[in-house]
């Protein structure tokens, strides 16, 4: 099963994603980090293949964490999660930093799984 780390300060978002992932049959959730700094630590410990990373978090945000991960770990695939759609600079910056895709909120389970499976 493909290991996925969820990074989001919202408990309910983490629960939604975890439900979608665990019911898929081909992915497993290896943990939940609440900000970018925790994500970097947990990436090192859990070694996920995919990280679903929220853009907007208190403390270290998703873009900052992505910037760090793009240098420290070139193997892990990061998908950004946001309610902002593809708006402006944050979306562009995420793509330039190597994010593989962006999942919009509100979630559609089919879309989430298709994006993860296409990685």
């Amino acid at each position, binding site marked *: 099963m493909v290991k996925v780390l969820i990074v989001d*300060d*919202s*408990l*309910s*978002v983490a*629960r*939604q994603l975890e*439900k979608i992932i665990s019911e898929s049959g081909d992915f497993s959730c290896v943990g939940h980090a609440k900000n970018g700094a925790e994500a970097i630590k947990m990436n090192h410990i859990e070694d996920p293949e995919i990280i679903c990373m929220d853009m*907007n*978090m*208190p403390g270290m945000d998703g873009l900052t964490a992505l910037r760090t991960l793009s240098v420290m770990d070139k193997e892990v695939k990061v998908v950004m999660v*946001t*309610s*902002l*759609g*593809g*708006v*402006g600079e944050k*979306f*562009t910056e995420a*793509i*330039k930093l*190597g*994010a*593989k*895709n*962006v*999942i*919009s*909120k*509100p979630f*559609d389970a089919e*879309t989430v799984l*298709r*994006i993860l499976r*296409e990685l």
Partner: protein
Amino acid sequence: MAVQFFGQFLMERGIVTGTALRDAIQLQEKNNIKLGETAVAMGLITLADIQRAHNAQLSKDMKLGDLLVEMGLLTLIQLDDIITRQKNNHLHIGEALVQLGVLTADTLRQHLDAFKTDQARYISSGIELPVISANSAIWEMTADLTFKMITRVLNLQFHAGTCTTPTVLSPNFMMAAMDLSGDVSARYLISVSQELQKSIARAILGEASVDDEPAEVLEDTVMEFVNVVCGNVAAKASQTGVILNINPPVALHPPAHGLAVPDGHTALCFPIHTGSGELMEMILIIKE
């Protein structure tokens, strides 16, 4: 099922890869030069003028073009000419993908049609505000997107009441709030009863029962709903050229006597009567 830009629409559907989109964005950045650089290229100002304006922006929250006019470096007509030139030379993401050979002109057209159909769900329908303000269109759009998200995300049947302008917000079980900044300054709130909080939690978590969920999780679902609405509002506003920044949501527990609307602010309150007889309120506290 969110407000999106075209590039993300294509990527989400697997029509283009992240790499192709990145290349297209880089091509856009090479082509779509910024206002200051355009003004310099047109011989209207110098690089030193741009630097002075950027320094002034550190203490003035103004767009560069407006600041250059205020500093007497450009006239309004010149600013208008610069913006027109930018628009005429603008390379859109779809056009960039065609130039890179990722899409053909025909497939671009087809995908644009599909995108317009998809996003038509987010076009605002008539909302009436009791006061007219400079940003009425944004507030109408916010209310409209809230109603759409209540239907699509929360699966709640409801009837929207008439918008009012209270000076004190009625007390309720909890409120979730999110601050909006940028081109407008406001606080967005959703006010709910305990029963509505559970309804929201059931929808967000996808669970038939939330009776055993900790209070922290139940509160978080209302905050997440606010986050989803405001994020989509920011995305939609951006499409009309209005910059809206959002901060992480917070939970509030108003006192029994309600929450006074601060001086210098106007509150717009949109009552939302649900099919189960509960009352939700969407409130905007707008800085005048």
